[in-house]
């Protein structure tokens, strides 16, 4: 592996871990409201898969999407400011944690109704295919989302018209408090793709290198015009479903087992052992991230509140009673 890529993996996974930690603290202090879904434990999935993609590809994600936005290149300060609901946030303070957007980075959100990402991604894919564009759409979703009708509807259409969509399942074994064997008759998500003739595989989502290699192969398959692909990443979230959930339905043993396979620690050790990185790199990354995250929090705290309640509901302000606005 190239040093540069190893550096990026470690940098982004560390950023992801520290950013979410800071978000949890800010939530506890009352600076972030509403629902807050965090990503610790799952870092390898977003980091590896998005590094395997091109900047010109599109990304559609769920409400657990801070890290996807960050890896995509959205400034940490703009993401944190959005969590704070500030005007400088990447959605201007109108979206919040679950609705991050960045048109410039082709980051199309941020969807908080489980199962929505499938249809959005299929629609972007349709547009790409209709116009003979070579980009791909990366569509993220949880293990719980595959029981929503849109999963089946959209996979059918994506396969039927060979749409350039890479479906990436972040299988963290839980749909809030319901473990996958209690919500899915077929708990191997990748097997479900075969119902629509879609190629798929399962990969260890705690291993950033494995996810990266699998995503590259999957993207090649899609870009070659073979239609969609489904990549299931087996992962785990260390925290509860959201800040409102302690995660008490899981055993300490289970948690300890997964923590022992921590994607961040595992990759750091391996990168040092393989000589991809040296100890000084790790220290440099750690202190750099400390600074970036602290700056993001300060920026968010110091930023102004949005003030225009009715901004951008429509292209132009619309008077519902037909007067001149």
């Amino acid at each position, binding site marked *: 592996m190239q040093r540069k890529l190893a550096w990026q993996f470690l940098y982004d996974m560390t950023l992801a871990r520290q950013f979410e930690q800071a978000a949890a603290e800010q939530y506890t202090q009352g600076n972030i409201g509403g629902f807050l879904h965090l990503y610790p434990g799952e870092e390898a999935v977003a980091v590896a898969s998005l590094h395997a993609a091109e900047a010109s590809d*599109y990304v*559609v994600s769920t409400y657990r999407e801070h890290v996807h936005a960050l890896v995509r290149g959205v400034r940490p300060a703009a993401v944190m400011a959005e969590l704070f609901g500030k005007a400088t*946030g*990447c*959605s*201007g*303070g*109108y*979206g919040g944690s679950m*609705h991050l*957007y*960045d*048109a410039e980075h082709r980051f*199309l*959100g*941020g*969807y908080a*109704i489980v199962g*929505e990402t*499938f*249809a*959005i*991604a*299929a*629609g*972007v*894919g*349709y*547009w*790409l*295919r*209709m116009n003979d564009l070579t980009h791909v759409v990366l569509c993220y979703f949880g293990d719980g989302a595959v029981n929503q*009708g*849109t999963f089946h*509807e*959209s996979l*059918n*259409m994506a396969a*039927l*018209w060979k749409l350039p969509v890479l479906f990436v399942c972040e299988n963290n074994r839980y749909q809030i408090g319901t473990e996958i064997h209690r919500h899915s008759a077929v708990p191997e998500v990748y097997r479900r793709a075969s119902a629509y003739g879609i190629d798929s595989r399962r990969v260890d989502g705690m291993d950033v290198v494995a996810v990266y290699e699998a995503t590259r192969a999957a993207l090649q398959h899609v870009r070659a015009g073979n239609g969609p692909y489904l990549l299931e990443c087996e992962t785990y979230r260390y925290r509860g479903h959201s800040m409102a959930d302690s995660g008490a339905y899981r055993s300490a043993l289970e948690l300890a087992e997964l923590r022992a396979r921590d994607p961040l620690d595992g990759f750091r050790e391996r990168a040092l052992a393989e000589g991809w990185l040296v100890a000084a790199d790790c220290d440099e990354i750690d202190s750099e991230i400390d600074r970036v995250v602290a700056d993001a929090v300060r920026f968010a705290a110091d930023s102004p509140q*949005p003030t225009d309640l009715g*901004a*951008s*509901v*429509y*292209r132009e302000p*619309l*008077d*519902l*009673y*037909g*007067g001149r606005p």
Partner: protein
Amino acid sequence: MTRQRNDNVGAIGTARPAPELEVWQALNIALDRAMERDSGVFILGEDVGLFGGSYRVTQGLYAKYGEWRVRDTPISENSFVGMGVGAALAGGRPVVEIMTVNFALLALDSIINMAAKLRYMSGGQLQVPLVVRMPGGVARQLGAQHSQRLEHTLINVPGLRVVVPATAQDSYWQLSQAIVADDPIVVLEHEFLYFTKGPFDAAAAPPPMHAAAVRREGRDVTLIAWQRMVSECMNAAAQLSARGIEAEVIDLRSLRPIDLPLLRASVAKTHHAIVVEEDCRFGGAGAEIAATLAEASYPDLRAAVRRVAASDVPTPYNLELERASIPRTQNILDAVEELAGSTG
């Protein structure tokens, strides 16, 4: 196989505009012209392509533009409307046909939670130039699941616009305007109006998309309606005229926004207003119009704004009961009579 084509649009794009067209033909021409002008305009829906559209609206377009721009979809309403949203985000101008409003209930997440909200939630970065067309209303003995209206739900959604054309000319104008607009717009069509004829001039300059139209002038009472109920009001007005009462009939054309200035001007003249709607009375669009008019035109009104609406029942199958479930001319005449009585 596409069905037998009507002469007027037999050769799409080359036909000379006829002086009179049916509503479906006007919609067909609007789609054709929009697709000719902008290669980003494309159609998604069940049986819109090879079959030519359940109400013929997309007839001939599949042959002319091919399967990628006129796409026959599986029966997956929520996802194909959601695909429209996704394609619109990426730069397209999709026109999605939902076979009838009854099936739109399965697509409300895509319409309400996504199309309507994405511009706002993204702080204005994204836009969803999507048109969702769908026919609704009470047709003939289709039973409760296939005979309903959805105005009540759709007009309450910030981010949407809802237009309700009744004539061929308005159908052409409003669909054309909806396609070039940058916001998500629902075009509610009426199953009973597709094959009604009216004057048509493709070159005439359109009024604003939300502007209401005075279909008949009168000095005594304002009848406010849309789509199928406009003709009931016109019938009622003709009968009232024979009795010396002159009703003004307003075709609203748009339900979000509504053209309040026109309604107020009419009421300033007639001092009486009745809203006539095919939807159920309780919590319907008519309630919004009546309440708004009551607030805005209170000094001009000599009696409370009245509503004539469908009965609050699922639409029955039996033909006589079905007819009785929605307003008829006689119900409008009765309401005018009561109004006259209440003002003395």
